[in-house]
């Protein structure tokens, strides 16, 4: 256990260093969601005039989008880095060391998780600076950060699975539109009860990303909503678990060492 923890720390350290040394990798996740948050929160401000809209601050409503988009970027980063390791043979180099598969996977998402943490602090800070009030208080703000990091880890693991399955950075990137679509067909822009088109509302209802967004949102505009939080955290943990299991299985197939 101690050795495994040590290995996770070593691989994570490498992942963090690598991410930090690629500004082209971390600048878009830090800036793009903030820009979109600023643009959309103003462009859609009129939505707060709709009867039944839960808040008069569209920025407060829309804020979770940034965390979700940041998590998507995390999947790309983790996946692309692992795909590069497969391509260059570095994965074989690691396979020849005593490191176990589980430690390798957990360490590989270190960079994405680290970036996820920085992103979360930045987005939350920007929202607070723009006047957003967190109804759940400082505890809620801390939970937002924890939730955002967990979601980044979950999507990061998904990226790892894609990398192991496709073996290429292009393969990882090609899934990005699908993941982005999941974000679009959610309750990111309007509460589900205000979505007029039935099929869209139904899709948003079965889309786990809606619950991730609603859990975060509830902390900002409602306070402590147990149901939203349970659903959201449940989806986050399920995402992490499923992605990790898929990635672990795929790693066993790809790294066929005896």
């Amino acid at each position: 256990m101690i050795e495994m923890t040590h290995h996770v720390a070593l691989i994570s350290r490498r992942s963090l260093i690598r991410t930090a040394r690629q500004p082209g990798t971390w600048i878009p996740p830090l800036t793009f969601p903030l820009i979109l948050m600023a643009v959309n929160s103003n462009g859609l401000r009129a939505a707060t005039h709709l009867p039944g809209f839960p808040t008069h601050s569209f920025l407060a409503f829309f804020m979770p989008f940034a965390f979700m988009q940041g998590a998507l970027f995390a999947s790309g980063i983790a996946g692309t880095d692992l795909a590069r390791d497969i391509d260059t043979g570095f994965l074989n180099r690691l396979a020849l060391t005593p490191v176990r598969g589980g430690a390798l996977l957990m360490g590989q998402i270190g960079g994405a998780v680290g970036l996820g943490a920085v992103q979360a602090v930045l987005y939350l800070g920007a929202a607070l600076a723009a006047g957003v009030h967190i109804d759940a208080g400082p505890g809620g703000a801390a939970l937002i950060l924890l939730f955002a990091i967990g979601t980044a880890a979950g999507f990061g693991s998904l990226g790892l699975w894609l990398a192991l399955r496709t073996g290429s950075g292009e393969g990882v990137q090609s899934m990005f539109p699908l993941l982005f679509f999941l974000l679009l067909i959610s309750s990111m822009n309007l509460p589900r009860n205000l979505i007029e088109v039935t099929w869209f509302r139904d899709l948003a209802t079965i889309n786990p990303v809606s619950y991730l967004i609603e859990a975060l949102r509830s902390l900002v505009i409602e306070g402590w909503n147990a149901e939203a939080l349970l659903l959201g955290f449940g989806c986050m943990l399920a995402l992490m678990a499923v992605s990790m299991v898929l990635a672990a299985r795929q790693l066993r197939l790809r790294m066929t060492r005896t």
Partner: protein
Amino acid sequence: MSSRLEVALALAYRQTTVLLKNPSFFVPPMLFPLMNFVAFAGGLSRLHQVPGFGFPDGYTAFVFVFVLLQSAAFGGVFTGFAIARDFERGFARRLLVSAPHRSGIIIGYGLAAFVRWSMIAAVLTVVALVGHMQIGGDGIDLFGLYGLAVIFNQVGLLWACGVAMRLRSVQAAPLMQTPVFLALFLAPVYVPRALLQGWIHSVAALNPLTYLLEAGRGLISGRPDEVVLAFGVALLLLAAFAVWARTGLSRAERAGA
């Protein structure tokens, strides 16, 4: 000796062939506008109930105009990626050596961008019609709408072309697409300009794309408004970015690319 048009047609043929043989190049520029259309028309349709919305032909048509222009711009930008790839792989050098009228190269890429976008626009239009989009305009109005989109497609291409020829690397892709993305979203995307509040209202008023969008929405609803202004703006952008692209080509020539 090839004329400018022959160079252009030969290059456009090659680009289109490459595109059709490589679906991975074709799918993203097709998918993104479709996804946006589905997300906006499906997820935001209730916005037409906001007091003062004032667009009678339904939210689908309202949003369709934006997505059409977005697809046009990105059809051009994605062709810009192809130009950058051509430089990285050395194909551009072959073009510069063999084309006697080098401005034909830009025209060729422009034709290729138009062909790429035409396919996307066709799919988008079919999807919108299947989604019961209401069209208040007549044939001439629609011709005007698609005409605006064609010009905007070329504007997107010329912008990306200029960047690609200056930087000559696919690493320039974010630089090609981010300004276009920002220009698109700093316009009245989701609601009419009158419903925008705060700084975005001021920015939208200065954004040339706002006039294209508003004219397009007028055309699709059969209530054309400020169409001449919109075409004027579009043609001005076309001229400006044509210069940008041509000077980019000169830079590439001087660099011996």
